[in-house]
Every structure is written in C-alpha cells, then in structure tokens.
C-alpha cells in the first residue's frame, strides 16, 4: 500500500545531493568533509550567474573571497581586454580562483572574466569567519586544507623558478 504520508516521511532517505554540494566535493579545500558539514557549508555559499565576457572581478579591485566554477568557464587575465590581454589561466568546472583574498586585504592581482555563461559559487572571508565562530572544527579543516593548497601552489612556483634558473645558467 502506498500512502502519501509515508512517502513524505521517507522522502529524505534517498535525497540526492544538490548541484552545489556535488561541485564543492570536487574542491580540494573541502576534502574529507562529511555530508553534514557540506550541508552547513552550502548554507553559507552564494551562487552567482555570469554572462559571457562579464567580469567576475577586476584587477586591483578590493577582494572579498574565492569563487568555484560550477558550470561554464572563466579566464584569468592581466592587462586590458582589447589588445594586450595576457591570459594567465583558463579555468573550467570544479576549478577555483581568488582564494588568496580569503587571507589578506590586498586588492585582486588579476581580472577574472567569464568566457561563457557560467554559474559560480562564492565563498567569502566573512563566511569563513562566521563558520569559524559557529563551527570551529569545520573552520579549522578549511584553513588547514587551504594551507595545503597554497603550499602545493608555492611548491609548483618553486619548481618553475628552479627550472627557469637552470635554463638561464645553461
């Protein structure tokens, strides 16, 4: 016998994860999170839509936090759009950028421009602070993972530097 009441009660059992959580799961900053932690994080995340060629942020603008690409793609550039644009990176689904702004008050160091219609998830300094206050264990986890990601980037930069220096000395 199928009753609407029972269906309602058991509705939560096979709940599929939202698109936001699925995207967040790809990001190394949120690795080893439990479903409950993802649910808490989801409440703080802001979902934004950007049209093609729309700026997510501009170089030297005050930065408030990081973005994660849910759908679409974003290019990171220096220089003006017309002529001498220098593309530093092209990012796709599951990639993230702007995470340095979580730590310092420095202005943005590059432009971020959507290259197609994109949906981004924003996670900001104040959200991190709120989370740190509400659930310090979760906040700690994010900071630790962020440290890991930044360390990885630094190591990558070091490798490039060493490579460049070796090429120069040869």
């Amino acid at each position, binding site marked *: 016998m199928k009753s609407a009441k029972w269906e309602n009660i058991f509705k939560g059992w096979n709940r599929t994860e939202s698109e936001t959580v699925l995207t967040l799961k790809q990001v190394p900053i949120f690795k080893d999170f439990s479903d409950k932690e993802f649910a*808490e994080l989801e409440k703080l995340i802001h*979902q934004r839509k950007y049209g093609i060629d729309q700026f*997510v942020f501009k170089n030297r*603008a005050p930065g408030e936090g990081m973005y994660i690409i849910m759908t679409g793609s974003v290019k990171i550039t220096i220089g003006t759009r017309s002529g001498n644009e220098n593309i530093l990176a092209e990012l796709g689904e599951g990639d993230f950028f702007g995470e340095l702004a979580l730590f310092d008050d420095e202005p943005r160091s590059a432009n971020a421009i959507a290259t197609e219609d994109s949906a981004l998830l924003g996670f900001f300094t104040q959200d991190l602070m709120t989370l740190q206050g*509400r659930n310090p264990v979760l906040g700690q986890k994010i900071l630790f993972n962020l440290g890991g990601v930044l360390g990885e980037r630094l190591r990558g930069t070091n490798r490039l530097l060493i490579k460049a220096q070796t090429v120069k000395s040869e």
Partner: protein
Amino acid sequence: MLVFAFLFTTVLLAGVDALERKIQNRGLSVLAVVVVILGGIGTFIGSFISQMSQEAVEFSSRIDKDTLTHEFNTLVEKFTSAMPDFLQNMQSSDTDLAGKLAEGIDIVAGSLVSMAGAIGNFMFIAVMVFIFTIILLAEYHVFRKSLVNAIPNKYFEVGLKLIYNIEKSVSSYLRGQFLSAASVAAMSLAGLLLLNFFGANLTLTIFIGIIAGLANLIPLIGPFVGMIPAILIAFMNNIGNDVAMAHQLFGVIPSPFFLFDIILMFLIVQQIEGNLITPALVGKSVGLHPILIMIALLIGGTILGPLGMLFAVPATGVLKVILKEIAFVRQNAHLL
C-alpha cells in the same frame, strides 16, 4: 515595527542558530527561544505587578491623607529652615505643597483612562513586533540570501561587505548595550542592598535594578529616569518614619528618605559604567562623536519619543556604515 523586529532578531539570532545546530530543526529552535524569552518577561512583569500591588496595599493601609499632608508639611518646614535666610525670603508665601500634590494626584488619576488606550495601542504594536520577530528569526537566512542574490554582479562583493558590516555594527552595538545594561542593573542592585544595610528600607530592589539597567539603554537621559523608581519606593516605604526623615548623608547633608544617598549611589554606578565598563566592553563599537550622538538623540526623540532615542544611536551607526561604503564604492567605481 520592522526595525524593532529586526533588532530583536539580531539579539536572538545567535541563540536560535546555536540551538538549531544542536536539534537540527529551526522551527523548534525559534519556538524554544521565544518561549524562554516570553516566560522570562512574563515572570518579571507578573511578579513585579504582584509585589507592586502588595506594596501599594501596604502603603495605603499605612498612610491616610492627613498623615501624608502632615509629612509633607514637616518636610517643607524642614527644608525651609535648612535654607539660608535670603533663599527663605525668595520663596513664595504659598507653602501648601501637600495641596498641590493632591491636585497632581487627581490629574494622574484622570489621565489613567487615556493611559489605558495607550496600553491597548502598545499591546497591538507589541504583538505585531512579536509576530514579525518570529518570522524573521525563522526565515532570516533565507531572506538574507535572497537579498544577496538580488545584488547585481557588479556590486556583489561590495554589497556583501556592506551587509556584513551593518550586521556587525548592529550586533556589536546591541551586545555592548546589553552588557552595560546588565552591569548597571547588577551594580544598582548591589548599591541598593548596601543602602538597605544602612537602614534605607528599600524593597523591590531587583526590579529597581533591572529598570535602572533598561533605562540606561537610552543615552544621556536614561540614567536619570532610572533613579525615579528607587526614589519613589524610598519615599513610599519611609513615610512616617522619623529616623529616615532625619537621615543625613555622611552625617552632614540632610537627606530625607535617603534621597541624596540614592542619587549619589546611582551617580557612582553611572560613573563606573560610563568610564570603566562601557569603554572596556563596548569600546568603539559604533565609533560616533558625542556631538553626533546628541544630535541623533534630539532627532530620534523628536520623531519617535523615548523609543526614538533608544534606536537613534544604532540607526546612526548603520547610516555611518552605509555612507562609508558608498564613499568606498565611489572611490573605486572604476574597478567595479
């Protein structure tokens, strides 16, 4: 009304959020917090009214009109004799202060009817604020998220920062006010008990303390309003008591009914609060210049009366945050 609901929400939000994380149900958390708050207010008002009426019954059984008149006349005589000669010559010949007081009481009784109407109006507003607060508490994060979603991409980060800053300045202001009110209440209570120790015979001390704490929320004027209940109680309890009539502050200044003792006690409490506790607890949470605060109080008081004064400072604080962000946006407009 919405402003009140928003302020109450800001105060209660942290509690509801914390409870929600524990029991995983926002509706129940809101209900629990609201029930606790209402229970607290109900207990306070209930016991206050019952004790107050007890006091009033006792007072009226002890005092009849003649004794009151007599007391007043002795008091007036005492004051007159204590005055220097030139001041005695300056005062009017009409010394029937008790008669004037009786007239005053008649006027008060007459205005009780209009007060009933005002109370009805107040109850309506209170119920509306209560309902708004519950809705805001339950849906705060949803409302906030839809507000953030409505910000255009260009101003997104700036808008988000503005919302955070407003929330921060309002909640830190309210927290500071709450703490300083609590400290005034506690210190007033201690002071009143100390006065009782010296024979001031004050009752309802807890209520006087709480009222003084609440009155302290209104800057500049509140502290003086807070003294009134204590003085009234001292007068009611000590009338007909010769020792209290003849009491002298520090054995020098005549202080009938411990009047000046009470005023001095409250002044000390206010000095401690204003110079030690508030700077330490509240710090520069709002960071407004005293003159600006005074102007804000004048405007708030003119528009909304005492309630306007209560909210003048946080409202000015919010306005300051908004203006600061607008200036920031104008300065960085080319980068957005």
